[in-house]
C-alpha cells in the first residue's frame, strides 16, 4: 500500500523550497477562478519531486509561482529561506516545448546565460554540457533542424549551464513520442545523478512520476489541493516491473480514482 508522508521532507536534509499555504485566484472579466487552494509543501535539497495531476489542475500554475513568474494570491514561497518574488537564474524553468531560442545555435542557446563568464570558461562549460546531454556534433546546428527530443535535451543543457540551484520542469516530455519519452526520462535521471540539483517536475503521467521521483505529490482537480504525497522508496535504476513499483503505481491509480482495466 502506498504510504502517505507528513508534509515535510526526510529529516536530515536541508529544506530548499518551502511552499506555505499558497492559494491562487485568477480574476478575468469579473469572474474569479480558484486554481490553487492552501498548498503547503517542503522540498529538500537535491530531492526529485513530481507534481502529478490531471491537465488543468493548476500544477503548472504552482510551478510558475515557484519560479517567480506568478505571485501567489495568498501565502508565500521561499527558496533557501528567501521569499520568491521574481524569476531568477538560480531557479531555471524548462518549458514543455519551443522554449529554445530558434535564432541561436545549440552552442548559442547553451551559452545564453553565460555571458558574464570569461570566454575560455564559457566555451568549456558549453562543451561540457553539450557532451552531457549527448548533442556532440550538433554544436552549430539550429533548433529547427533538431528533433523534438534533441530540442528538449538542448533546453535542459541550457538550464544546467548556469548552474542553478533548482530545476523546474513543466511537462518537458509532453510533446515527445512515447519511445523518446522513455529515453529522455533515463537521460534526465542520469544527469540528475551527475549533478544533484533539486528538481520539481510537473507531469500528468503516473508512470513517469513513479519512475522518476523521490516523492510524488498527487494533486486534485481544480481548485487544486494536495491529495496525497507518496514516497517512492525504490532505488535507482528502477525496475518498472518490480512488485514494489507496481504497488506504488497502482496505489496512485486508485487514489486518483482510476480503474485497473481499460
Amino acid at each position, binding site marked *: 500500500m502506498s504510504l502517505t508522508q507528513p508534509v515535510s521532507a526526510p529529516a536530515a536534509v536541508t529544506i530548499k523550497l518551502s511552499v506555505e499555504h499558497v492559494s491562487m485566484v485568477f480574476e478575468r472579466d469579473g469572474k474569479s477562478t480558484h486554481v490553487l487552494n492552501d498548498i503547503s509543501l517542503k522540498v529538500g535539497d537535491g530531492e526529485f519531486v513530481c507534481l502529478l495531476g490531471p491537465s488543468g489542475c493548476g500544477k503548472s500554475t504552482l510551478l510558475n509561482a515557484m519560479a517567480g*513568474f506568478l505571485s501567489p494570491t495568498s501565502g508565500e514561497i521561499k527558496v533557501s529561506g528567501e521569499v520568491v518574488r521574481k524569476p531568477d537564474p538560480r531557479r531555471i524553468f524548462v518549458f514543455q516545448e519551443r522554449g529554445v531560442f530558434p535564432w*541561436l545555435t545549440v552552442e548559442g542557446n547553451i551559452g545564453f546565460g553565460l555571458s558574464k563568464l570569461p570566454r575560455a570558461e564559457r566555451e568549456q562549460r558549453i562543451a561540457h554540457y553539450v557532451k552531457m546531454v549527448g548533442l556532440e556534433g550538433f554544436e552549430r546546428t539550429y533548433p*529547427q533542424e533538431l528533433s523534438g527530443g534533441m530540442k528538449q535535451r538542448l533546453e535542459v543543457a541550457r538550464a544546467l549551464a548556469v548552474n542553478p540551484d533548482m530545476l523546474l520542469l513543466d511537462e518537458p516530455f509532453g510533446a515527445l513520442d512515447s519511445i523518446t519519452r522513455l529515453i529522455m526520462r533515463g537521460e534526465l535521471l542520469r544527469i540528475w545523478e551527475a549533478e544533484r540539483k533539486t528538481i520539481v517536475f510537473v507531469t500528468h503521467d503516473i508512470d513517469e512520476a513513479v519512475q522518476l521521483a523521490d516523492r510524488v505529490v498527487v494533486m486534485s482537480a481544480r481548485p487544486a489541493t494536495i491529495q496525497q504525497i507518496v514516497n517512492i522508496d525504490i532505488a535507482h535504476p528502477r525496475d518498472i516491473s518490480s512488485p514494489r513499483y507496481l504497488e506504488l503505481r497502482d496505489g496512485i491509480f486508485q487514489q486518483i480514482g482510476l480503474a485497473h482495466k481499460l
Partner: protein
Amino acid sequence: MNSLSEPRKWERFFWPIFASALLLALWHYSVVWSGTKVFPSPREVEKGMGELLRHHVLWRDIVDSLRRVAAGFGAAVLLGVPLGLTLGWYPAANQVVNPVMQVLRPISPIAWIPVAIIFFGVGDRAAMFLIFLGAFFPIVVACISGVSNVPSVFRRAGRNFGLTAPQLLAKVLLPAALPQILIGLRIALGIAWLVVVAAEMIAVDSGLGYLVIDSRNSGKRYDLVVAAILMIGVIGLVLDLAFRRLEKLRSVRWGFRFES
C-alpha cells in the same frame, strides 16, 4: 496538392515562358488588329528600350530613383524601427500614439506633396520625404506586431536567466521579432518603390517616374512609356527578390515557412 500529377522540373520553365509568349502574341495582334497608331507593339517597346539604354538616359534615371528610395527608406528604417519596437514593448505608449497613426496612415504620400514642397521645395528632398512617409508607417506597424507576437515562453525564459529590460529587448525580443520585422521592411521597400515613381511623376524632373510622364508629354512616345513601365516592374521585382534573400539567413530562417 490539388490538381492532377506533380509538375515535372522542366515545367517550371516551360509554363511561364509559354504564358509570356502567349501574352506577347496577344498584345502584338491586338495592336495590329486595332490599327492603333499610338499604342506600341512589343517589338516597338523593345526598340524603345534599346534606345533608352543607348542614350544612357535610362541608367541615370534608374540611379536617381534608387538613390531617392535609399534615402527615404533608410530614414524610415532608422526612425521607424526603434519607434515600432518601443511601441510594441510598451502597449500603454502604443495606445496613446495609435489614434494619431491610424488617421495619418491612410493619407496617400502623394497628398503630402503641397506640404512637402513648403518644407523642402521642389526637388529631391521633397521626393525623399514622400518616400519616407510611405515606408514609415508599414515599418512601425510591422515592428509593433513583431514584438507583441513574440511568444511569452521566450520572454519568460529571458527573465528567468536574469536579463534586465534592455538586455531582454536586445537579446530576446529583437531576434524573436526579426522575421516579422523583415517582412515589414520588405513590404515597405515595395511601397517606397511605388511612391518614388509616383513622386517623380509630379514633383521632380528625373528618375523612372519622370521618364514615364516625359516620354508621353514630349512627343507621345508610348513605346518609351511602356518600356519605362516594364523597367519599373523589373527593378521593383529585383529589389523584392534581393530582400527575400535576407530572409534565408540562418538566424532568421526559422521564422519563415519556405517551399521545400
